[in-house]
């Protein structure tokens, strides 16, 4: 069993599950240096659900990709579970992408098992883990279907299952429900909270939708337009489990308004 990026994980992280310190990123474009992210510091406690919102092009996806080790920042550090992230490490971080990005030539089950296949896990283990994840995301009986035989919501369920199959402590989600219709989106948000409460993962979730942000989050981080900075941190103290009815409450509305005000100021 080969592990490309094996990292010793401390039992109890000295601080948060994710620690970003003074992260800055500058793109070297045709028109010279474009500052994309500016002095970002944040800390996400273990088991917390943190949502990042901000205007288009503020660099929130870039920030997430850096946390996943898929891109490199110009300066600053990112630590996950107490060790720096310099390359993708599926043992610490699972990623769920915007378009489910399933491999169309693999069945739902094989898509979920893909990360296990990469590290050469035995067939029985792959099968068993993937089946368990399929059940967790509520798709029992759909394992043999190919992606083109699944609806948009089902594809994202498979994608979430794939992100969780190696049981990483951290799950990063890049606008996973952006391409879904409103109703499916609501259902998926609710489903995600159920899965999160069952698995106790640390989640960082990027979205455009303020309602989604308030509904899902323990804490919302608001980013400004380019160069992206964190301009507000809003604790969402709504009780859990969350319900659809809460969206109509005054507290919910006030929180959403505050985020909106901050985005307008920062844009």
């Amino acid at each position, binding site marked *: 069993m080969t*592990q*490309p*990026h094996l990292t010793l994980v401390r039992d109890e992280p000295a601080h948060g599950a994710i620690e970003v310190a003074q992260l800055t990123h500058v793109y070297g474009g045709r028109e010279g240096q474009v500052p994309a992210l500016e002095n970002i510091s944040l800390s996400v406690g273990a088991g917390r659900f943190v949502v990042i919102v901000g205007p288009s092009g503020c660099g929130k996806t870039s920030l997430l990709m850096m946390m*996943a*080790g*898929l891109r490199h920042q110009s300066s600053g550090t990112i630590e996950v579970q107490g060790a720096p992230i310099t390359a*993708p*490490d*599926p043992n610490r*971080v699972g*990623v769920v*992408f915007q*378009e489910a*990005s399933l*491999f*169309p*030539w693999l069945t739902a089950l094989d898509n979920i098992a*893909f*990360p296990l*296949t*990469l*590290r050469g896990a035995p067939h029985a283990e792959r099968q068993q883990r993937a089946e368990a994840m399929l059940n967790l995301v509520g798709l029992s009986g759909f394992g043999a279907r*190919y*992606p*083109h035989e699944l609806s948009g919501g089902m594809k994202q369920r498979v994608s979430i299952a794939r992100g969780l199959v*190696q049981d990483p402590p951290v799950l990063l989600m890049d606008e996973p429900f952006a391409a879904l219709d409103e109703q499916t989106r609501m259902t998926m948000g609710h489903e995600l909270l159920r899965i999160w409460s069952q698995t106790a993962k640390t989640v960082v979730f990027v979205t455009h939708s303020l309602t989604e942000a308030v509904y899902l989050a323990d804490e919302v981080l608001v980013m400004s337009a380019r160069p992206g900075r964190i301009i507000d941190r809003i604790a969402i103290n709504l009780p859990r489990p969350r319900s659809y009815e809460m969206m109509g409450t005054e507290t919910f509305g006030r929180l959403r308004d505050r985020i909106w005000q901050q985005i307008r100021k920062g844009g």
Partner: protein
Amino acid sequence: MTRIQLILIRLLLLALVLAAWETLPRQGVINPMLLPPLGDVLKTLVEILGRPQVHEAILVTAAEVIVAFVIAVPLGALIGVALAESDYFGQIFKPLLFYVFSVPKSIFLPMFILILGIGFQQKVAYAAFSTLFVVIMSATAAVESVKPDHVLVARSYGATQLQILTRVYLPSMMPILLETLRISMIFNFTGVMIAEMYASRTGLGSLISNWGENFQLPQLFAGVILLAAVAIAFNESVRFLEHRYSAWRT
């Protein structure tokens, strides 16, 4: 319409054409000198398949086709992948290749004869040359069909370069690669036939060309049936594989 009905209708159409081929020349509706009846052609086919001269021709043609295929497909695939993966080479060579691609390759045949004579090498070189460009074009398209998102997913789960190649590139490209294999065989076979019919001492193309010039039409049609059978058999077996590997492309 069910699948079986479709197959029945196709078989019926084929039977009709074959029956017309048999009866119309016998009735004198079509001049039997120009289109000998199917029965006569099949009899001739059995007869020529017994001739040592025909055996030799089949072997020569098959060898030419196979060698040209083995040269053109890997070489073209390599060039095509290089062009698709390297922006630099792609930008320089792609337009040039498109120009050459549009020119009928048969006009270069006399040059091949001048340089290589009319033997085995010339047939192989010409067939490989006429196939190369379509392989390059398709291989480029195959690489470009790989989605960057899929590569990103694989990387995020810690895939090595080799795993990205075998688990993302290869399956993404498989449908187009198989299609390329099939189409390049058609080009390749055509190339060998043209070269043999144009100037040659051996090979099926040369036999067919001679039979035509000598007005031996039963032999000519027997040759056509033989070639068609081989070509269709290859094409269909690759198409079967193509279908299996591209069920997900909908």
